[in-house]
């Protein structure tokens, strides 16, 4: 890769790493996994940097890599066989907001990976149905149904909290 393109890549990654990491955290639900996933994503982005430059939206392209990497990981033999415990200490701040956050995380964790990815794409990344469909490799109809199922599951899981 030419020096100028290396510089572009580095500049982009540094600028968007925080966003990438937080999205990965929503998908993985732990920082250890999120960092691994973000690392994998920026590595893949490097190998496809030329193609990425031609994408209509670079952020959308990167989001695609991230979600596909997440789903691949869940499918891969290694992920199925070895469950890596997190090494980061979870240190939530005390208080109502922290409790709520834990509940939301538990609810998200209970969603199957594809459903979780759909919800994150639609409601955190604000992806239109068509873009989410392209990233997930499914039809727009499937995105709608996965979204509906995911939302219902979240609502059910969080209902007691929301009532309180």
């Amino acid at each position, binding site marked *: 890769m030419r020096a100028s393109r290396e510089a572009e890549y580095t500049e982009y990654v*540094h600028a968007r790493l925080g966003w990438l*990491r937080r999205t990965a955290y*929503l998908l993985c639900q732990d920082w250890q996994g999120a960092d691994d996933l973000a*690392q994998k994503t*920026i590595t893949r982005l490097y190998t496809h940097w030329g193609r990425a430059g031609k994408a209509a939206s670079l952020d959308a392209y990167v989001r695609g890599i991230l979600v596909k990497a997440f789903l691949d990981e869940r499918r891969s033999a290694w992920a199925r066989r*070895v469950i890596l415990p997190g090494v*980061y200490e979870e240190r939530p701040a005390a208080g109502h907001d922290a409790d709520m956050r834990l509940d939301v995380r538990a609810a998200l964790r209970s969603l199957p990976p594809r459903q979780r990815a759909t919800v994150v794409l639609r409601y955190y990344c604000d992806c239109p149905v068509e873009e989410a469909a392209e990233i997930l490799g499914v039809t727009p109809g499937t995105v709608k149904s996965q979204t509906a199922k995911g939302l219902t599951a979240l*609502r059910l899981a969080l209902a007691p909290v929301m009532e309180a």
Partner: protein
Amino acid sequence: MNPVNSMSEDTVRTLLADVASAPEPPSRISVEAARKTGRRRRRAARVIASGGVAVLVVGGALIAPHLRLAAAPDSATGPAAGARIAASVTPAAPVKPAAPAPAPTQFNPLELSANFGWLPSFWNEDGASVEETPTFTVVNLVDGQTLKVSPRGWYPDPSLYSSTRGSFPRAATDPRASAVNGRPAYWDGNGLMWEYAPGAWAYLYGAGNVQSTNGRALDEEMASKVLFGQHQPLYTPFQFTHGLPTGWQATETDSVLTNGRLLVWQLEAGPAAKPGALTITGDTHAGTCGVQPVPQSWVTTGGIRWAYTYSTGPGGDQAACAPKTIDGEYMTMYYYWRGHAQALNLASLVRSTTFFGPDPSGWTTQPYRG
């Protein structure tokens, strides 16, 4: 109102944003590591695409399915399967290992010095990228597992692709691992560091195995079967037929394993005072012909017109690149030794370089004569 129905889409957005804004621990993400691995994977992907199934021959032994885990069926799922792996890699009754052969004080970058001797069934060496220097060997599997070995008197730097003189300094503080073939070993937070021969260290890391009991058992098994003292040749697609200046030697090679051969895509050479003075690289991507400003002259050889540029004045940089592919690769040569009287004329080197064609079976294990 039923709260299940009352949670609107906007509420979900707010909740997700709130979770994502949770306090973050320090990041372990490394952009530099991504670039380095990305470069290697581009090579690996290209070679896999043009090659086939690879089986590595090391010292006459095959790294083949019979060496892989027998008790890890493809249908295995969940923690129970993980437990089966752990069970299958439990070492047999301890046997006093034979004393290891002394490690060399430096490696030959034109040979593979060490390699995995055993891999679990879900990994293989197809497309593995290999870096060889006098002070370290790295074998990086496509899946991320990496073996880094140093010669006697050095230890692999855990954070960089390099070696450092001396003994692993954190041996005094890092948790002690089970001995590997009777020799001391340590978990350093990312992988397993062990002294494979007196004063010589090896390091296994990269796949996150260290984070779990099963993974650590896997690392220990792989470490115990690493092959040292190897002399597997590397194959280069070119040869400097007039040799290199007196006292120069190969100082680094980068290659990718395909069809049982390590195929070099980058070679560095130089004298002891400037080990990486010369670099020759092949790349399938156009645009690496980074000769700036406009070439000062052209070198035509083998029907290819190379752009050639050089610094003015005594010593300095020279660069030559082929704007067209040679056997499918864009070749670039750099000579960097700013401020030093030039010991090498790059234009002459280009003219005296022979290319052996796209078929690796015709490549050479001697990239330069003399």
